[in-house]
């Protein structure tokens, strides 16, 4: 059974159709990349999945439950974790408290006490390598550290599905490499499904995701295995604006991916 199932989801803002009849299935433990240019509806899709917006049409089914009309805070304990494009730490609270908040109100909400949650927080802080900043106010971290903290906070929720919104945007190549390695590790250790959203088709996604969904103008353009999706002429057109020399594109992309893996 699919962990997450979207059926013909449509979200409009006035006359603008931000998400246009998108259907999607995500299996437990799967890693999916959602790519698409700016304004293609990726973040809105995330917001529909975790309840910030309610869709005008269609259904969102998570873990067998219809959650289309459920408020955001009730979805999280079911196992939906999320990081934000622009990190949203609880600034005055320490890193430890931030991550503990994740543990306290996530899937374990009914079981953990404050002390348990702080212990869980310590574990994930160590995992993302922020132990030196544990008692620092989260608002004083650098952007990269904030992203790591958000991932720790989302993981501390013990989600079944983690939605990562532009986990690598604005990072330099070295940080991106670190993040890619780290996300691979999360996938192996935590055994959760991850949906990672990125604006550009990056080597990162190519190296990580098993499946890629390409969005364009609110609609799902391509949903295929990573290799096929990245070399699909329609995808090339979305990004370059005109049909490109397909064979050149294919060889360029894969040269990069292969270099990465070696």
């Amino acid at each position, binding site marked *: 059974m699919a962990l997450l199932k979207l059926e013909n989801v449509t979200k409009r803002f006035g006359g603008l159709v931000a998400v246009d009849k998108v259907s999607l299935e995500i299996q437990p433990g799967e890693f999916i990349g959602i790519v698409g240019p700016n304004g293609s509806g990726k973040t809105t899709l995330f917001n529909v999945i975790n309840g910030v917006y309610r869709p005008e049409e269609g259904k969102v089914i998570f873990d067998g439950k219809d959650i289309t009309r459920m408020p955001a805070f009730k979805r999280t304990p079911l196992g939906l974790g999320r990081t934000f494009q622009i990190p949203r730490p609880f600034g005055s609270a320490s890193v430890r*408290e931030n991550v503990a908040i994740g543990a306290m*109100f996530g899937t374990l909400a009914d079981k953990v006490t404050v002390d348990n949650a702080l212990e869980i927080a310590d574990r994930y802080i160590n995992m993302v390598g922020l132990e030196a900043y544990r008692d620092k106010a989260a608002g004083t971290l650098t952007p990269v550290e904030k992203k790591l903290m958000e991932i720790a906070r989302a993981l501390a929720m013990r989600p079944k599905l983690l939605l990562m919104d532009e986990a690598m945007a604005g990072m330099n190549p070295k940080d991106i490499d670190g993040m890619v390695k780290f996300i691979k590790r999360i996938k192996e250790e935590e055994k959760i499904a991850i949906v990672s959203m990125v604006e550009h088709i990056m080597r990162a996604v190519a190296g990580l995701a098993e499946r890629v969904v390409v969005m364009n103008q609110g609609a799902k353009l391509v949903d295929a295995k990573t290799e096929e999706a990245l070399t699909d002429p329609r995808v090339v057109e979305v990004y370059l604006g005109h049909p490109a020399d397909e064979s050149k594109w294919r060889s360029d992309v894969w040269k990069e991916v292969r270099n990465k893996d070696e």
Partner: protein
Amino acid sequence: MKKTLPKYYPLIPVFAAYLIMFLVGFSIPGMWQMVALLAFYCALGQSWNIFMGMTGYVDFGYVTFIALGTYGMSLGITYLSQYEWLGIGIIVIGFILALFLASLSALLEAFIALRLRGAYFAIACIGINEGLRYLIEGAKFWGGSEGLIFFGALVQALGRETVNQLTTFWADFSVFIIAALAAFLNMHYMRSKIGYALTAVREDEDAAKVMGINANKYKTIAFLTSGWLGAAVGAMAWGLKLGYVYPGDVFVIHYTVECIVVVLLGGAGTLLGPVIGGLIYGLSKYWLAVIMPGFQLLIFAPIIIIIIVVAPEGVVGLLKSKLKGTKLEMFIE
């Protein structure tokens, strides 16, 4: 390295302050009235601070709770004093009625106003306060604008001796208890999931919701607690102690402003803040009223402005930064 601070240490200085105030008032003749006034400000500051400090919402209509508490006690005594067998029970019932009215108003306000943010919330609260006042005056219930005068009924029901003791000692003493209870609840909330949830809500309400936090529920808990304590103070310090209530006397924004001043002076969102703020404000008001009657507010306004500029975190904020890294740190919150 694991740092598990003993959880309730910061309560020690707060309780110590209340105990000292009580002992000073109790043992030094002529001091009781002044100490009672100080306790009143501390208790109100402490109660108001639970909601404001934890959620960041400024409740300008807070006096509604104090007023409704006063009315609860007044109604209880006015309508029940004829039943002699109830005895002192009329005060208990009045107190429960005070909490009940405060709960109703808190839940109603939570439903309407807690959906609003920032200035809109503040204005909605003022509106509710003024609305209630004119409702009582206009619809002429609960005595209308003539209020309720029940001191005589109270004397008749309980006897002059008991009433004397109640109004001159127990009413004030209970304010100390309420203040201490407010401090304890505040501390307890800060150290429990409620505190963490509200920290998240205060910093970023939308992100908090995505983290699985039912923002409205936790805000309502803090609001209700804050309201109950305010109503309790009103019931005892205004209702029982004075023996009368007029709508024009109790639904007065001025008292909310005093709460805010007390808390800002001491340090918003801190545990010790309202105590220190209450002491500073109460003492200087008392003293200024003696040497320069009528000029208190004129003098207070610039002092508040200076404090906000020089020490935006209040006296306790200053103290905290001074004590950082020392052993005393764990006692200040």
